[in-house]
């Protein structure tokens, strides 16, 4: 059997090529290591926390990686979309509180509140994304330096406007009743919010994968990530695809922000910047343009952060930087980046 036929065989059976399969297995397996020094119950709690955190970072990172991969744009305003989503969610929850849909609300109303918040964030983020892309990002194609400067400037402006519209102080977010508290599963305390975060994250991943793998739009975007020119000569207005992807990325980041606000129950204007750093690390680890890569990277970062924060708190962020450095040394394009 020729190696080409063998490769094709594995591909057809599992849907991905053997190298990537190997990467997946190794990356997942390594996370059982902390069981060596952490007891199983605490490990379970930390794992859930880590997965939840990872999912929320994934929401921001997924948009960021697509924007890099397709448009070759370094968007440092992504954090601004995140924090705007958070504040929009906060205000909406305050408004919903007045009709009793938050504190003391039943399951249906709670779910309704959260869904409304996600929807609002999606819309606000999407609009911000379109406006930013058409006004500013458009001017920066081809120059990474310009992108960094302009998107950083835009980020500053957006965060300052946020401080004017709301306030520069921290705010407390009220969480819908049904999502407060936790369940006791075999002695492991599982916070409800974390489960919600994981569910939302998985849903988003599934949604993105569906669009990317099964729809014509997905084919166009994946093709564009590999080679914009060919896609354009096949008759597609790649600029419009850019705007669309930028808009989707911004919307996702805003949704991430809303989820984070419910998750952490408090928000502050600088949270966008903080989340952006994590998202950047995840995108680097996962590889530019790869959504599955950033999913993997996000889980890694979330888990690593929580395991290390439990053992050696001040090293938590440092651990992630170390992981990023190690991965870049082995595979400079990231886990699933283009070779």
């Amino acid at each position: 059997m020729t190696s080409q036929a063998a490769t094709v065989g594995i591909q057809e059976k599992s849907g991905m090529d053997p190298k990537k399969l190997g990467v997946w297995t190794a990356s997942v397996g390594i996370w059982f290591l902390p069981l060596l020094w952490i007891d199983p119950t605490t490990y379970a709690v930390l794992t859930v926390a880590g997965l939840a955190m990872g999912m929320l970072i994934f929401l921001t990172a997924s948009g960021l990686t697509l924007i890099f991969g397709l448009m070759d744009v370094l968007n440092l305003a992504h954090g601004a979309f995140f924090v705007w989503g958070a504040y929009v969610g906060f205000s909406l929850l305050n408004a919903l509180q007045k009709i009793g849909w938050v504190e003391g609300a039943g399951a249906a109303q709670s779910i309704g509140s959260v869904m409304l918040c996600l929807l609002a964030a999606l819309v606000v983020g999407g609009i911000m994304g379109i406006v930013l892309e058409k006004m500013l990002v458009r001017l920066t194609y081809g120059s990474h330096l310009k992108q960094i400067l302009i998107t950083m400037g835009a980020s500053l402006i957006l965060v300052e406007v946020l401080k004017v519209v709301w306030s520069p102080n921290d705010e407390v977010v009220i969480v819908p009743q049904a999502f407060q508290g936790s369940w006791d599963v075999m002695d492991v305390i599982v916070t409800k919010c974390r489960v919600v975060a994981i569910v939302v994250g998985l849903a988003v991943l599934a949604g993105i994968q569906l669009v990317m793998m099964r729809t014509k739009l997905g084919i166009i975007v994946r093709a564009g990530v590999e080679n914009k020119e060919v896609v354009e000569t096949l008759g597609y207005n790649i600029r419009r695809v850019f705007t669309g992807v930028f808009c989707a990325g911004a919307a996702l980041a805003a949704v991430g922000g809303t989820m984070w606000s419910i998750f952490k129950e408090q928000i502050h204007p600088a949270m966008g910047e903080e989340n952006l750093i994590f998202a950047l690390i995840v995108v680097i680890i996962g590889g530019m343009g790869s959504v599955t890569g950033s999913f993997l990277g996000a889980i890694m970062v979330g888990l690593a952060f929580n395991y290390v924060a439990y053992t050696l708190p001040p090293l938590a962020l440092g651990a992630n930087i170390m992981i990023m450095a190690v991965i870049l040394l082995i595979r400079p394009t990231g886990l699933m980046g283009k070779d």
Partner: protein
Amino acid sequence: MENKAMQPTPVQMERRALRQVRFTRPALWVQLLLLACLIAGPLLLPSFRAMDVMTKVMIFAVVAASYDLILGYTGILSLAHVTFFGIGAYSLALVTFHSGHSAWYHIFVAMALAVGLSGVLAVALAFFSLRVKAIFFTMMSLAFAEFVFILGDQWHDLTMGEDGVSFNLPGVFNVNWSSGTIFGAPLNGRLLTYYFILVASVLLFIGLVRFVRSPVGRVLKSVRDNEQRSTALGYKTFHYKVLSNVFGSVVASLAGVLFAMWLGYVNPTSVLGVPVMLNVLLMVIIGGMGTLYGSIMGAAFIQVAEAWLPDLQKLAVLLLPTVEVAHRLAERWILYFGILFILVVIFFPKGLVGTARDIIARRKLRLAEPNH
């Protein structure tokens, strides 16, 4: 026998031509004027605020120029430059603080520590920049800068965390030292510290200028413009990149030491924060990438703005005492910074000095044309 070694090389010929016009070039007069202002400044305007702004302009001009070396001349976009600045500042602060008293040798120990640490770190970063694509390196450097910031913020035992470190300078530099007046201004620790910083900054800046005009600097420009060509010509571009990175980073850390000397207090936000990095980047962009002298203009612009823009809020309250939105808008002077950032990048991509040089060059070209 003819001595072929006597034939001047093109570089030597250019240098000779430059040297001949050295004292007549208008740029030189501007530089001397600037220097005169800095020397006379504190004597003419003894207010603390004026001296503070001038000192910060000097120090940040050096930091921005050292960043320009790496960004404008070598073409590497690193967002970790502020880390070196912070290392320098913390070196002096921690050495003085942890030894319990202040002594002269502290300054030198701090400088040596800063240079050593920065040098090693710069080499490590340069290694990474070779290994990964430019855009990855930029993102990585940003993450790294944030990491060091958080380290400084959280490592209470060493750095006192976000509270920062307060310390005093030794001998005549001490804020409490004073002895009469000189040229009408009070002769005290502040004044002497100012002049020390002035001399040090000028030396560091001249060092950068000489570096850029040296043969090494030429190779750097060729690496920036067309790296493949430089490699093909036989230059080990990596070595040159590392060299310029190290030099720029070390200069920045020495500027950090000076900054600590002036403030007598360091904390993570003022010397390690990403906003400081952004400021430096903006200074280089406003002044003009690849011009070194542009950094002086950029630093002046930004520091003056930062010193006086917060007063905008007071103005707003004065003019429109009841319109609260106006107060809030005026309070957010960073907002205008952001708008400025964007406008400069779009309309003046070459910065002030860069655009000026462009205009002058174009005028010379037009005058040189025979008939039009």
